[in-house]
């Protein structure tokens, strides 16, 4: 949902201001509550779990999450619902492809920053093919010709450079993140040539429009998944937190299989969860 806030801001600055005021109040309350949630130091298992979850300001994050759900219910989801009703599948796919093509310079930058020259080549080929044969990016012709899409962002680049992720943070409107990814969002925005061009030629509306449309497109892409996840989870917040962190780890590895992922032991085999102890699993992460 990157930058949806900016899109809203463009249209309703007053509302956003009062929202921020509310956030400030929530922040103070939640931070005080957050301090109380750290486990006692004499319980090593709790401490290990606390570290593994990596969410020291959980009550605060949960408050922001609640706020985000409110914004989604009141604004983002209804708008996206209308979009889904009026725009048929192929149109929405076209919009999604178009927005993806606009992101090519940022992906290329990050491919290069990570030393991934082969992927950089793919990004260039995709941009050339889709901008022309793909009719300004509305069709993903490149994928059909064997240049599969991939995502890169500066948050991933920082990870490749061994910058630690920092604690889990729930950003207002933007959703799950961490300091590393939050910095990544800002850097990606700043290096995007389309944004430079828009601001140098007094066409900021292009940036605002793109941001708003991207937000709706993202919500559209997530529609079924979030619907399903909310229905089938008993702690929606915790489920999203776990998914986000695993997904990011996978994106950073570019999909390669990690060395020894923690997993359930087999009942019949020598090694079971109870025997090795959950602590081993926790510290293995």
């Amino acid at each position: 949902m990157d930058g949806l806030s900016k899109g809203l801001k463009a249209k309703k600055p007053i509302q956003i201001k009062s929202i921020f005021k509310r956030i400030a109040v929530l922040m103070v309350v939640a931070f005080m509550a957050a301090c109380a949630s750290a486990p006692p130091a004499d319980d090593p298992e709790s401490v290990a779990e606390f570290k593994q979850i990596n969410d020291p300001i959980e009550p605060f994050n949960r408050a922001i999450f609640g706020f985000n759900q409110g914004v989604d219910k009141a604004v983002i989801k209804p708008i996206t619902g209308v979009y889904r009703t009026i725009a048929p599948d192929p149109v929405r796919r076209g919009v999604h492809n178009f927005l993806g093509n606009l992101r090519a310079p940022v992906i290329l930058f990050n491919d290069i920053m990570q030393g991934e020259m082969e992927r950089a080549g793919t990004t260039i080929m995709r941009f050339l093919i889709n901008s022309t044969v793909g009719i300004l990016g509305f069709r993903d012709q490149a994928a059909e010709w064997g240049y599969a899409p991939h995502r890169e962002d500066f948050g991933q680049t920082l990870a490749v450079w061994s910058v630690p992720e920092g604690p889990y943070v729930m950003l207002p409107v933007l959703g799950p993140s961490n300091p590393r990814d939050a910095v990544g969002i800002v850097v990606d925005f700043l290096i995007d040539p389309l944004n430079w061009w828009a601001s140098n030629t007094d066409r900021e509306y292009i940036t605002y429009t793109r941001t708003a449309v991207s937000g709706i497109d993202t919500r559209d892409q997530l529609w079924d998944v979030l619907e399903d996840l909310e229905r089938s989870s008993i702690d929606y917040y915790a489920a999203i937190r776990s998914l986000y962190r695993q997904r990011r780890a996978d994106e950073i590895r570019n999909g390669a299989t990690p060395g020894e992922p923690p997993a359930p032991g087999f009942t019949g085999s020598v090694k079971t969860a109870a025997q090795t102890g959950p602590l081993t699993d926790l510290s293995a992460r």
Partner: protein
Amino acid sequence: MFKRGFPSVVAVVFAVFVLWPGQSSAAGGDLSAGAQKLIQSMADEAIDSLIDKNISAEQREKEFRRLFRTNFDVDAIGKWVLGRYWRTATETERREYLAQFEEFVVKTYAKRFRDYSGEVFSITNTSMVDDSALVHSELTGHGEGQIVRVDWRVASADSTYKIIDVIVEGVSMSQTQRSEFSSVIRRNGGKVTGLIDALRKKNAILNGR
């Protein structure tokens, strides 16, 4: 960032059982061969019994439960998902938890096969991780050129093979559930009964629909 993360969950949806028998690669060792065979045969069965649009919800659930019990090590998964709280749980709590856990998985996953829309599944290769086999597979046909990676973690004992985890686009189902369950327990004052109640409530809601 978030964008691509979630489609992967939807993928599990189709992936968990809608497997299409694909070309098999040369597998090294008994475990990887056995693991691959397990996934392959489960695929055939799932195709036959789960994706039929005409069967009733009850029938689908029944079939899913049967496949789940035969091919997954349900108790081991349930136990691992509970994490450190397994040790402190009483015998009654453990039994009740495992029953509710199985119900929860069956209820949440069986429904998803109704929406199957022609995705094609193929096993790409198998690798060894730790003392288990990882069967790598792909699900195609989601959208233009989109491929979803699904990895099946299979362990064996006494020449029986069982799935112990499903990893979709790098997201482990067991890991996610473990994280979610422990959160519920912690928010209920460290009591496993809090989780059991939450599961029971959720199952009742899922049953109602």
